[in-house]
């Protein structure tokens, strides 16, 4: 039988390196910009443009001009109503008055002529309050504690049921740290910003991670009851191998949808889908290579601070 849990030290070191890289990038970002990752206009003050073209233009033509100026995630919204033909509103990160003049000039030249005297450039405050972000953060923490208790209850027939809860929550935090690091790195390399949708992505990843881990744990629970004479490590390893088909099939299905949106989808949700893709991949990885090996390490008394 192929032994997965034997090489657990390698997985732990690998995870630590990836998460460490993410944390280092976040700290670098914190020192240079004052935020852990580049925050989008939802969380920061920004600029609102209002423009009217003399002829119909497409969303992507407008987006291209903003991208040329290094603005990666403009929210481009069509305005409708009387005297608002071909009028658009664009929300961006904060741009200086000089830069905004250059942008409107470029739009006028490259996309279509602007209607004179209709252009409006205004600074706007953040739309997602700090209290909302804090609420989501606290919600995840509370959820983690309650899930820990729930898993302890669901696995009460197996010895040390507390460990199952703790390891599932550890794997969930592992996945959240992976996407935080991913956000920080893509922020520096690609200029992606963390917006309100990132919050949704983080919640989705947390939910998926837990679901995936519980499926593997469920098989361990079943095998412990059926094979009382077998060693714990063997049972655990057998459980991973028995569920690996299902893990791969589920992971593949999730990837089909997300890769399709990444390849052919609209520009406005690509960063969101990319975070989901990385997070869901990490969710499957962490069930097999973090949560379960952690259980074995705990059983074998290998975890510092928890040695008895």
């Amino acid at each position: 039988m192929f032994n997965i849990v034997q090489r657990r030290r390698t997985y732990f070191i690998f995870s630590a390196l990836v998460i460490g890289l993410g944390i280092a990038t976040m700290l670098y970002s914190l020192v240079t910009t004052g935020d852990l990752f580049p925050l989008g206009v939802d969380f920061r003050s920004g600029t609102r443009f209002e423009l009217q073209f003399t002829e119909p233009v497409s969303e992507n033509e407008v987006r291209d001009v903003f991208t040329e100026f290094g603005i990666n995630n403009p929210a481009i919204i069509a305005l409708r109503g009387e005297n608002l033909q071909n009028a658009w509103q664009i929300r961006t990160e904060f741009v200086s008055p000089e830069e905004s003049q250059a942008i409107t000039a470029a739009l006028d030249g490259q996309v279509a002529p602007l209607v004179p005297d209709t252009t409006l450039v205004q600074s706007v405050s953040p739309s997602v309050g700090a209290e909302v972000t804090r609420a989501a953060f606290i919600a995840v923490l509370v959820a983690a504690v309650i899930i820990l208790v729930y898993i302890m209850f669901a696995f009460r027939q197996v010895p040390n049921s507390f460990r199952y809860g703790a390891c599932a929550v550890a794997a969930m935090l592992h996945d959240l740290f992976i996407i935080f690091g991913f956000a920080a790195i893509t922020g520096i390399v690609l200029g992606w910003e963390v917006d309100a949708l990132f919050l949704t992505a983080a919640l989705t990843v947390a939910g998926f991670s837990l679901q995936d881990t519980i499926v593997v744990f469920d098989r361990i629970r079943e095998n412990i009851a059926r094979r009382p004479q077998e060693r714990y490590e063997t049972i655990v390893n057998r459980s991973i191998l028995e569920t690996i088909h299902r893990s791969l099939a589920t992971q593949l299905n999730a990837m089909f949808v997300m890769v399709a949106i990444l390849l052919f989808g609209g520009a406005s949700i690509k960063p969101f889908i990319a975070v989901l893709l990385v997070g869901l991949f990490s969710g499957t990885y962490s069930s097999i290579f973090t949560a379960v090996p952690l259980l074995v390490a705990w059983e074998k008394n290998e975890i510092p601070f928890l040695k008895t």
Partner: protein
Amino acid sequence: MKRRDFIWLAIIILLVAGAGWLAQNPDYPIRQGLDLQGGLQVLLEADLPPEAEITRDQMDTSRQIIDQRVNALGVTEPLVQVEGERRILVELPGIDNPEDAVELIQETALLEFVDTGTQPLPEGMCVRTTLNQGPSRCELAPGQTVTETITTAAPTFETILTGADLRTAQSEPDGFGGYFVSFALQPDAAETFAEYTSTHVGQFLTIVLDKQVISSPQINSAIEGGAGTITGDFSLEEARRLALQLRFGSLPIPFSIASTRQIGATLGELSIEASIRAGTIGVAVVLLFMFIYYRLPGLLANVALIIYALLNFAIFKGLAVTLTLPAITGFLLSTGMAVDANILVFERMKEELRKGSSLRESIATGFNRAWSSIRDSNIATLVICFILWTFGRNFGASAVQGFALTLAIGVMISMFTAVVVTRTFVNVILGRAAHWISARKWLLGI
């Protein structure tokens, strides 16, 4: 066919028919949020002379109060921003009564109890108070602005208490078809109120909203305990609106509407179209994968999945769930879980078949053994949903709330479709032709 399978099949057909009827019924529109469909944009401007100084603090407080009022309306994911130095930008997704909503958020809602001595005032009269002297919008003819001069000044009275002294407020029926607003005062305000009413028995304490008289009751006796009511011929809507405005406090400065207009989807219509097309391709690949990898059972699971989507769609319409991108993500995650549940069952079935069990036995074992992991992981997800929903509701984070709601609905339906519906189909079709299929293992993907 077993009796149980027959009953389930009948229930499934009835449910699908019901959902199909709801899905095509135009009386239940599908609601979409600002990000997918756009909505109404309202620009509010401080209604003060240009030279008047407006602090950053006043604008931030106003933003917060307007945000709370909009959220209390049950609007999903509105956007409220301060723009520049004296304007607030509000964006509301498609709602039933945009005019009412705009009126609600724009009203200053400054409540005052004023001492009018021995004189009751008629309802609707404009007054001035010692709180912030000078003319108010109440005295203006429609279209006039505060900066213009007013010829006949309204009388000025002394303010005893304001809406800021209120702890809570709510609307209640008076038993005669009308409604009133009951309120409770903060402890120290309650003392002031008791002291004032005990020394002014027989006089009139007039209740004024935005400098306009609502009612002018006589003080019959000292009012202890700080609870009271505001009566004034309210309809249910009016009483509710007043209670809501009082609960979240008055705006520190008056606002007027600078402009209102329709806006398109904030995620960009072109982007959304492309994403929907791409998502459809992705789902098609998933269905194809399930069919190729699991063959006949996969095909049945695909039918169950389509039923799952139809039931979800019907419930979104029936409960008037507002669909936003976070809400759709919640739905997609639950779809993933529905597919996962089938995969769990089928992998288990294959395992049993490889061990040499008969087809009938493998089907039964597959569903029985997979059930504990489907149950435990789905309950864990529902627990998370409940926590996220509660937090989202209490902190006005409607994106989080929407995500949790659609995820929870999806998980509950998926437990039904992925287990009951798929099992019924598998039992009815594979069970009847067990012999024939057992001889053709490729139909089962082995």
